[in-house]
């Protein structure tokens, strides 16, 4: 059973990667990742998607960072400060699960409404804020899933050594759960860099390299979307090459994060 499950997962992953490489590799070139779109790019002329790579990296790093800053304290608070309030914690988990389940187009639409109210234009900043809100529930809930398995005995031991709750949060729970927290960050990052619907109305698009937070930004998912919609076959192929780039970014980040979490994985106490 377990072998079967593992094989299925590996097979699906290989299938996705193989089909994207198969369709995208011919179109992938150094120009593609080092240049911005030239005039007529979407009709098959030269250039690349550097604008979207840079825009997506800014957007997803910014949003993941903000969501981490907000999410980590909340997840720790739920598990360290609210231990006596199980009902509150259950209610919070329920609400976060609902927020997690809301389709990203709804977050995009909400972001758009707020932008109109506040008189803001489509911009990198608006995109970062919208995507941050989209991934905060993912960030909190997946960290919470790791933190909630810290045994009560470890909590009690740390209290008995004279720790305050904040010390327990940041010196014990955080350390014990570093691998789980990294997974939570990766999950949020993957969602942030890969989501098209939330950025569609809020971030806009540009063929130029990102200049400032208040300018519209290109993103890889939208670049893929536009290229895929082109009637020109070469441009369609570029969409798959762009998808390859997107997957490469996620892979590089994941591997770097795993290497970082190795050290802490050894420290983690297996109960």
């Amino acid at each position, binding site marked *: 059973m377990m072998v079967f499950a593992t094989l299925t997962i590996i097979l699906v992953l290989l299938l996705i990667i193989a089909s994207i490489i198969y369709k995208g590799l011919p179109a992938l070139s150094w120009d593609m990742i080092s240049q911005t779109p030239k005039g007529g790019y979407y009709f098959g002329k030269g250039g690349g998607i550097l604008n979207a790579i840079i825009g997506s990296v800014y957007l997803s790093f910014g949003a993941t960072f903000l969501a981490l800053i907000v999410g980590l304290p909340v997840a720790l608070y739920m598990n360290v400060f609210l231990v006596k309030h199980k009902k509150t914690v259950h209610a919070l988990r329920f609400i976060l699960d609902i927020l997690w389940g809301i389709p990203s187009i709804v977050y995009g639409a909400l972001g758009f409404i707020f932008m109109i109210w506040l008189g803001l234009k489509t911009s990198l900043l608006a995109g970062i804020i919208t995507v941050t809100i989209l991934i905060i529930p993912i960030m909190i809930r997946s960290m919470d899933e790791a933190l909630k398995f810290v045994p009560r005995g470890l909590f009690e031991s740390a209290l008995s*050594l004279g720790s305050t709750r904040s010390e327990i949060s940041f010196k014990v729970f955080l350390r014990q759960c570093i691998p789980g927290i990294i997974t939570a960050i990766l999950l949020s990052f993957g969602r942030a860099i890969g989501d098209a619907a939330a950025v569609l109305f809020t971030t806009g698009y540009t063929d130029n390299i990102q200049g400032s937070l208040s300018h519209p930004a290109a993103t890889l998912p939208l670049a893929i979307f536009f290229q895929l919609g082109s009637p020109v076959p070469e441009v369609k192929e570029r969409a798959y090459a762009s998808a390859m780039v997107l997957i490469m970014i996620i892979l590089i980040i994941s591997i770097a994060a795993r290497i970082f979490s190795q050290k802490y994985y*050894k420290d983690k106490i297996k109960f």
Partner: protein
Amino acid sequence: MEPSGKIKIQNLNLFIGKQQILKNINAEIPENKITVILGPSGCGKTTLLKTLNRLTDLYENIKISGTVEMGNEDILHTKTDITKIRRKMGLVSQRPYPLPMSIYGNIAYGLKISGHTKKQFLDEKVEYYLKVTHLWEEVKDRLKQPASALSVGQQQRLCLARGLAVDPEIILADEPASALDPVSSMAIEELFTELKSWYTIVVVTHILRQAKRIADHVIFMYLGEVIEQGPAGEFFENPKMEKTKAYIKGAFN
């Protein structure tokens, strides 16, 4: 001044929800002796022990009345910062819970959070308390390795060492040998016997033979009540209550 290290429990009642777990407990824990809290499973030993350093703060729907005096302070109602009081009591739990850090880090942790940062001071303390718990020879070459790599028996001694490093007056131990093999278990018992000249030690157990081996003073509990308490010799040789006699004969466990 009242000698410190001695605990006096008066009219202690503890409810979780509607269930009364501890019923009007009155007991004394003498200084620099091993006091064993003895009784069958589920009688409230762990709960009583956790009340002593207010780990019961973590329980939901809990109601406590009565007093637990240590020195001149009622721990249950004091205005003193509870973390300071907890620091005076080292906890050894039923199974070891090392902190997710190195062997060295585990012992240095309590010192660091109470403001000691000098490396030389920490080094000395780590070595000293690892020697006190007879762990030094076994781990001196791998202090920077994760504590999770130690055997359970070693982890238990590490947890004791880490508790002692914050310089407590009292050691609270909840069935400290129950997860250990016989050799490690004897090692822990011997350690307690060595340590009692410096610390007041409270050990929870439901193992009668273990209680006989280490106890100076016994508090015998049954269904949330203290049935009998007194010096170990008297308690085991000459129990007064019928329940105690039956328990010592092994009638129930």
